[in-house]
């Protein structure tokens, strides 16, 4: 059960839901930038939602499946093809040994996810298979994929086997066969070019001037080219504090909007540091992490304020949708 990397793409890494429990050792969480897309991809192939998948950035890789597999693609629309023909996203697809997956134009979004039934089989490090690029561990040898790499895949799950059998039977002599169904749009949103991101006021929000607070919610910010898995530098109105008192380092997390002395904010992403000393203007809500993860450099975003109660209601609604999808796949195809 393996996949050969013919071309690596711009930045293709093994990711899961992240490495939890070691932030107090200074170890980043890492994991998928768009965790919802990762979870949906996994559920579609009968995996536990936290299984390891490939995170594919803007320019996709070229891969060859060396054995029959059940796969699903979610997240950004990067024009995926199987043996040169377009393949639908957000659905399970059976692929025969020898089939090649490639990508074309980046139509919408930044990051696509490829799940394979059974999960990408790399050794877990500190409880996770996520790649920690800067420290060089986790994932596939602690690095992004290169041409010539061979990824091992665990055997398909029982649910995955049922799905594979059904799809293979429908394939006739074709080298691959997609399912005809997809989850609803709430779990498979089309990435928006200039989205509004919902956020809560951050712990140091009140330290900013009233003008800066207003500007933060009312004016757009451009995502600069300094945007990677660690965070996005934004360009927009200068945000000023009313005090120059230095802060002591404290925890920062995915979605923390911190403002260094220059007044241009940085929003932290999956490879965020564990602690930071910049004032925290805002905190993006978990339900909008996926939207943020799919924004591209050069696009603009706006922030909209929501309450903690609203943020948590949205969090729970998203969890319910994911759990409903898991139940549906298991009910229809579980053994």
């Amino acid at each position, binding site marked *: 059960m393996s996949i050969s990397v013919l071309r690596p793409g711009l930045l293709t890494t093994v990711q899961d839901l992240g490495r939890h429990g070691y932030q*107090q*050792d*200074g170890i980043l969480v890492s994991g998928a930038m768009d965790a919802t897309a990762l979870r949906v991809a996994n559920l579609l192939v009968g995996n536990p939602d936290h299984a390891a998948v490939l995170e594919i950035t803007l320019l996709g890789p070229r891969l060859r499946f060396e054995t029959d597999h059940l796969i699903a693609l979610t997240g950004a629309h990067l024009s995926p093809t199987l043996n040169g023909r377009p393949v639908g996203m957000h659905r399970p697809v059976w692929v025969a040994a020898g089939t090649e997956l490639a990508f074309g134009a980046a139509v919408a979004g930044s990051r696509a996810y490829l799940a394979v039934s059974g999960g990408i089989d790399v050794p877990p490090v500190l409880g996770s298979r996520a790649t920690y690029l800067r420290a060089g561990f986790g994932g596939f040898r602690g690095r992004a994929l290169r041409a010539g790499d061979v990824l091992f895949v665990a055997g398909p799950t029982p649910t995955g086997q049922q799905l594979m059998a059904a799809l293979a039977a429908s394939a006739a002599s074709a080298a691959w066969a997609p399912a005809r169904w997809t989850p609803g749009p709430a779990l498979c949103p089309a990435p928006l070019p200039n989205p509004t991101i919902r956020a*809560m006021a*951050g712990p140091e929000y009140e330290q900013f001037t009233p003008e800066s607070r207003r500007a933060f919610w009312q004016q757009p910010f451009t995502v600069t080219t300094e945007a990677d898995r660690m965070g996005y530098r934004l360009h927009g109105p200068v945000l000023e504090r009313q005090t120059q008192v230095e802060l002591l*380092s404290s*925890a920062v997390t995915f979605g*923390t909007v911190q403002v260094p002395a220059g007044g241009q904010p940085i929003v932290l992403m999956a490879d965020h540091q*564990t*602690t930071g000393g910049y004032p925290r203007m805002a905190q993006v809500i978990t339900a909008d992490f996926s939207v943020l993860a799919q924004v591209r450099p050069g696009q603009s975003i706006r922030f909209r304020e929501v309450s903690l109660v609203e943020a948590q209601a949205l969090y729970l609604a998203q969890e319910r949708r994911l759990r409903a999808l898991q139940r549906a796949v298991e009910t229809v195809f579980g053994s």
Partner: protein
Amino acid sequence: MSTAPQPPAPRAADVRLFPLGDAAVVLEFGHGISPAIHRAIQAVSRYLTEYPFPGLRELVPAFTTLTVYYDPWVLSENGRHQPYERVAEILHQLLPAAQAAAGEAGTDLVEIPVCYGGEFGPDLAFVAAHTGLPPGEVIARHSAPDYLVHLIGFAPGFPYLGGLDERLAAPRKAEPRALVPAGAVGIAGAQTGIYSLPTPGGWQLIGRTPRRLFSPEWARPSLLQAGQRLRFVPIDEAEFYHLQQHEH
């Protein structure tokens, strides 16, 4: 350890709770760097590690705060509770017991061997000139105190240390180095620390330790932990290479 009377630790009623987004709550124990606040944070951190509540994801202690990451789905108990209210209620109930359980913090002493000066400490001369102390005196003062590990952050295994001799304070380099080797011991302002990964950096480097500060293969990936005490022990070059062989 100092025998001066210790200031009282913050009481549960003095701890302020506020959210960091929809999946974390921050416990703030006061303002400013102080051993009393540090002890209170360590006590609660130890208690929650020993008696985690359902849905507790992880803890991040810092100078004045303990950030508690939680799973809102678990805390909601199938939508019956508002997760933040529930986690705040649980923490308010736990705090008095957690703080009462405060043991003797900071008794665990870790010795870090350091080869000062020369190629290992290219900025020792600068720090000596800046402080007006002879290099030998800089080394003596740097290796004299028991430092307190306030937190691990910035990079894997990187300790934020309290207790630097004020006379050793020195500004950061105007131009950061493109690459500082792992193990480099530096001074920046009134702080001293050890680089745990090769990284760009602007600290004044006065020495280097052959010890590894972190490894993903250790059960606890960071050599140092918040709450420990640390002492730098001067070694010579021969000893540096000898110890380095044992580390790798």
